[in-house]
């Protein structure tokens, strides 16, 4: 039985460079699983997500989602972009509406879609700002709308590209808790790119660690064996959390040192 999301022998080379960014990446994600992909900057983790999203063509290998090979981008693989990518001339409601109208028009009536947009605004706790434009709300709120928009497409898999990278530590923690809550409620299959070790351990079922690029591949996969729901305060001193954290740190900082720091 093949995996729900099956990334096999994925190799990505850019035209001008002789060495591929990623080579022979293998990753199987089960339905409902939350997988974090971590690695030093420049290792190609965002490239990997872009291929799964369909925004980038793989050089070799491919991605199969729910029994079908992906070709091009589509709403079954909704993306939460790092810089939120909301359309600035639309309100929060309209940003989600654009996605919902476009992707769910055939399956839902007008009124049903309206309810669904409001439901998703509520899911990310942004009802109060539904008529605000993106420049009127904070970075964390923008990202919440970005998540709400992605979820509203009813994707088979949610792709998050360093979703909280640009946020301050407090806001990031708050949004992580919200994503955990939503994942608990909806059980959506999620692949998240991150460079934050705590975030990876706290949120995911498995952490995929990429070696340094070029020629990056999956170096190690760590199962995070923590019961859900998880609580960040309770986990802070939990030996399982601490061990998982240490294992990722060891991989990143002892065995695969940041290439940028090495050069310096």
């Amino acid at each position, binding site marked *: 039985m093949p995996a729900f999301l099956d990334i096999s022998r994925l190799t990505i080379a850019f035209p001008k460079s002789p060495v591929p960014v990623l080579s022979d990446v293998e990753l199987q994600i089960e339905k409902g699983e939350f997988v974090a992909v971590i690695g030093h900057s420049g290792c190609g983790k965002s490239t990997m997500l872009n291929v799964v999203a369909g925004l980038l063509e793989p050089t070799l290998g491919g991605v199969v989602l729910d029994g079908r090979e992906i070709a091009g*981008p589509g709403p079954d693989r909704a993306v939460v*972009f790092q810089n939120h990518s909301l*359309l600035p001339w639309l309100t929060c409601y309209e940003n989600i509406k*654009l996605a919902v109208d476009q*992707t769910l028009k055939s399956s839902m009536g007008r009124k049903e879609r309206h309810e669904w947009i409001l439901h998703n605004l509520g899911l990310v706790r942004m009802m109060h700002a539904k008529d605000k434009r993106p420049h009127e709300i904070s970075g964390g709120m923008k990202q919440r709308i970005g998540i709400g928009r992605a979820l509203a497409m009813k994707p088979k898999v949610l792709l998050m590209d360093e979703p909280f990278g640009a946020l301050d*530590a407090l806001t990031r*923690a708050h949004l992580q808790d919200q994503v955990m809550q939503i994942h608990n409620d909806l059980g959506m299959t999620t692949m998240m790119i991150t460079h934050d070790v705590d975030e990876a351990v706290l949120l995911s079922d498995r952490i995929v660690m990429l070696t340094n690029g070029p020629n990056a591949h999956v170096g190690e996969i760590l199962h995070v064996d923590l019961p859900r729901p998880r609580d960040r305060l309770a986990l802070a001193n939990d030996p399982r959390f601490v061990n998982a954290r240490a294992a990722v740190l060891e991989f990143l900082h002892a065995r695969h040192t940041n290439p940028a720091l090495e050069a310096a």
Partner: protein
Amino acid sequence: MNVQTKPVAAVAATTSTAPAKPRVAPVIPRESRARAIAAQVLPPLLILAVLLTIWEFAGRQPGATLPAPSQVWTNSYDLIVNPFYDNGGLDKGLFWHLSASLTRVFMGFAIATVVGIGTGLLIGTSTFAMRGLDPIFQVLRTIPPLAWLPLSLAAFREAQPSAIFVIFITSVWPIIINTAVGVRNVPQDYRNVAAVIRLRGPSYFLKVVLPAAAPYIFTGLRIGIGLSWLAIIAAEMLIGGVGIGFFVWDAWNSSNLTDIIVALVYVGLVGFALDRAVALIGRLVTRGTMAN
């Protein structure tokens, strides 16, 4: 986890000091607001007064070729205080001349807006169209407006459409070029969003490209309206009839130098108003787009 403890501590520190010093909403005194307005308005008025004084002084010198401001006021008093009189023929108040010129500008500019945005969208989306048309446009746009007038007179055989054509051909280039640049510069983020939700074809164009390019389009329109106003004055000098350009030329032929000065002040003010009007419309239409 240590990442979080620091900000928490910082917040606690600020909240504990807060009650000691209750925050009062800053009240801006009325005086300072009036002063701020005065700071904006007074300098230009002051400089204007100085310039008028120098001009007055220079104009009163024996052998001065141009009239002083006081002479302008006395000689062209009727023209200044009554812009609405109409004695038939070309003997009309400045309002009528200006409105004739503005009508031509609006007609030419309206055609230029439609054609310019349309062509710009084409060039912005089709690489073939850009490669084919851009070099031609780059050459054509350097041709001075008046150089088109003889050709357009030959083609249309009438003054009015010729003048409108000159306005069109003058203002269309910046609209085309800016629209094309705007379309080409739709941020990759927006393209990605559109790709993920499979927004394509006309609806992608209407819902993403056009709003994203709107600020560029309005920059083009603003340059275009400025050029139109420059061109109409010159064109009207040559084609005659009612219009502020010909009014200036006519005043020169009858040696009414003071009338020319009054007309020039009006031309400047109208040009300024046109520029600001397009800028204002642009701000209203693109609200939100720029602020990110």
